[in-house]
């Protein structure tokens, strides 16, 4: 099947199998390997991207479902050489260690701050609760998002 998906502002048209997952479309067709894959059951969230501005687990979306839609991945956060505030926040507050969960966390954080510029700790924890991190114990992820809100 042919799909056209706008990713980070650019349209991409590709011939794909109907069963192709969006995460594999991004990684294998477009070579956008910042979006990761980590589980078979839609639990880990390392595949999180924004679909029309809303965070989704791209392992749970078929590429054909994204046909005609807009996707933002971690590669799309930096604009004109300027890092997004969430990227700066994570760097300043040590919000990442191995970096595997980070792209997904950044996209959820961006979405949260777009809706709620100054979230409290509980709101942040809830927003990222569908995404696992095995390294940070979440503490510095929360702080990073709080810091991003100030930037």
């Amino acid at each position, binding site marked *: 099947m042919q799909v056209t998906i706008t990713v980070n502002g650019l349209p991409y048209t590709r011939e794909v199998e109907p069963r192709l997952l969006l995460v594999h479309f991004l990684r294998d067709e477009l070579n956008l390997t910042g979006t990761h*894959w*980590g589980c078979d059951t839609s639990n880990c969230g390392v595949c999180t991207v924004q679909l029309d501005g809303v965070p989704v687990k791209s392992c749970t979306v078929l590429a054909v479902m994204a046909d005609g839609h807009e996707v933002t991945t971690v590669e799309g956060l930096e604009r004109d050489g300027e890092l997004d505030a969430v990227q700066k926040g994570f760097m300043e507050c040590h919000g990442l260690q*191995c970096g*595997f969960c980070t792209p997904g966390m950044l996209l959820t954080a961006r979405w949260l701050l777009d809706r709620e510029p100054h979230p409290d700790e509980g709101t942040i924890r809830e927003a990222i*609760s569908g995404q696992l991190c*095995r390294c*940070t114990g*979440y503490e510095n992820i929360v702080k990073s998002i709080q810091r991003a809100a100030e930037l």
Partner: protein
Amino acid sequence: MSFGRMHRKEDARFIRGRGNYVDDVRLPGMLHGAILRSPHAHARILSIDTSAAEAHPKVRAVITGQTLAGLNLAWMPTLSNDVQAVLATDKVRFQGQEVAFVVAEDAYSARDALELIEVDYEPLDAVVDARRALDEDSPVIRDDLEGRTSNRIFDWEAGDRERTDAIFAGAEVTINQDMIYPRVHPAPLETCGAVADFDKVTGKLTVWCPTQAPHAHRTLYALVAGLPEHKIRVISPDIGGGFGGKVGIYPGYVCAIVGSIVTGRPVKWMEDRSENLMATAFARDYHMSGEVAATRDGVIQAIRVKVLADHGAFNGTAQPTKFPAGFFHVFTGSYDLQAAHCEVTGVYTNKAPGGVAYACSFRVTEAVYLVERLIDVLAAELGLDPAELRLRNLLKPDQFPYTSPTGWEYDSGDYIKTMRMAMDIAGYDKLRAEQADKRARGELMGIGISFFTEAVGAGPRKHMDILGLGMADGAELRVHPTGKAVLRVSCQSQGQGHETTFAQIVGHELGIPADDVEVVHGDTDQTPFGLGTYGSRSTPVSGAATAIVARKVRERARLVAAAMLECSPDDLDWQIDESAEGRAGSWAVRGDPASRKSMQEIALAAHSALELPDGVEGHLDAVTVYNPPNLTYPFGAYICVVDVDPGTGQVKVRRFVAVDDCGVRINPMIVEGQIHGGLADGVGMALMQVMAFDEEGNHLGASFMDYLLPTSMECPSWELGETVTPSPHHPLGAKGVGESATVGSPPAVVNAVVDALAPYGIRHADMPLTPANVWRVIQGDPFRTDLAIP
């Protein structure tokens, strides 16, 4: 910037999605592999029919145990001198075991083709419960090993049995408690995988694989496959978490290599999550029976332990050859005892192999859990506050270096100070008062303490090895003419931030900015030999190697500086100037500090036409190998506060105070981050993580739906404190910290929950303390957490 909170260099790529993990490696013409796994825990393989899979238009090869047997590769050595099937030939011995490997043009087709392979199995009775493994009528799992008639792997003991028994015989008070440290899995978010590329023309094999020990892998591949070691290059790219699960070699890696040799093209193999949970290294699975002898006024005299260790179907634990139970015999913990003794029996069961994996410091985790639970049981028996009981028995500063009853030499410690700091931060007395109020109202609140001593930084090479390879690590430092440096180390980061911490060490020693130091790691063609990163050994071992190699460079620089300043090297003093711009080092003439040469000036001169005295080579580069004289012994005091809902059994971790002493902290930001992660692990293991099995050996935790990991909602905001007791033998006084919190936190959480349940007369409950389990414990009807067997 020298030591201190420097932002991480590696973040620049990770926050942009520019990390390079193994699944991001793409080579021209690359094929994709997938593994067919056993649905049975124990079964004889009668036949395998691969013809339909081979006929699939996108399949390029199908490899079975028989194919491998032809190459003498059907079995590979494990890290404990056992053998493990790469692809099963005779029997399958755990659910999820590797049976066949398909190589196809793309990953989806490879998976499709797995469905086309027909395997005829004859199911056999499975040994699931370790406590039944040695029964007379138990099926023998390892009938592949000649002469083996039972599932016993080893019996091992440590300590002084007679002295311990004598103390028990005369003790005023004794207590005993059975406990299970259930089977868990480290579950890094990146699963395991490999890309193998064998170049037929040059004979060179390159393997990209997220390994914590790339050099050990290279040597093992050479030994297993008979390939010359200089023709093997192992590249460990960015790793999405390891936690011990990425130390060993998995069958999939060997399959990818064979796939590349057979097809002449690069082959990628990536496991999925259920494969990761079912077949890669588990941790723990220790069934422990502990006893304490004490005086009535709370002086602990001796500990006696029996352990049944479930090693799964192949003994694959990664631990020094001398120590089949790892460092478990450090179980006397942080206390001043007269004697101790342990007996450990290792058995085979029909479960995945593995062993020490999961940030456990070679089973110090199990040891600390045991002793910290026993102390609380003793406190309950004596009617003493568990903090008070610990304070009475903790080692005193003047007892260090301290030789433990089982032979460990603790390097340094000031335990009581650390314990008091944790109690102060927690407001311990107030918490106890609050608890008393709540109890009076029928509410369940618990306060749990754990005091741990870790044993990390393995190790002195004469005692510590993996398959005969001594645990010493190399470092190589080059200083370029402009004074910028490249450090090459044998250890490999899985998120620990080595590129930053090690650059800081070089910057500190050479007096140059850490930003001027590039750290190269994870590529065996580019780095010196060493055993890698696990057991919190990077800073204790490679960090020490880095400091020493930098000091060698500094001494070489002194000779060049002397030539520049036309004086004797003995007349020079090393001088460090701290300023807002950072730290600048120079060699200065004694008594004339204005006559000096900075490291940058010296580096340029060392590469110039400057005439050097006889015997001075020029250039500044140096290499070293660091063989630690002893382990390092970080320690800490943790206090956890929980609230338990008596109606549902739900546990809420309200507060968690952690005071860690890991000696000198090179980058406190990174140290704290590692502690946070380990604390979350502890909460996870104590409350939710377990790999249980049913009586047929079916894995009941093979997805993230069933194997629960803590999220941001289960974790409190961690409250940290620090004390600094430098290690006397480490060149920087550092001790290592990566695993401390994973080791120390589970008993604090369990002690807190058991404390909350004290009104019901409960003294112990096994992990994980899920709502269902806690509720059953309250009803006086606890269930087995590790097995779903009635």
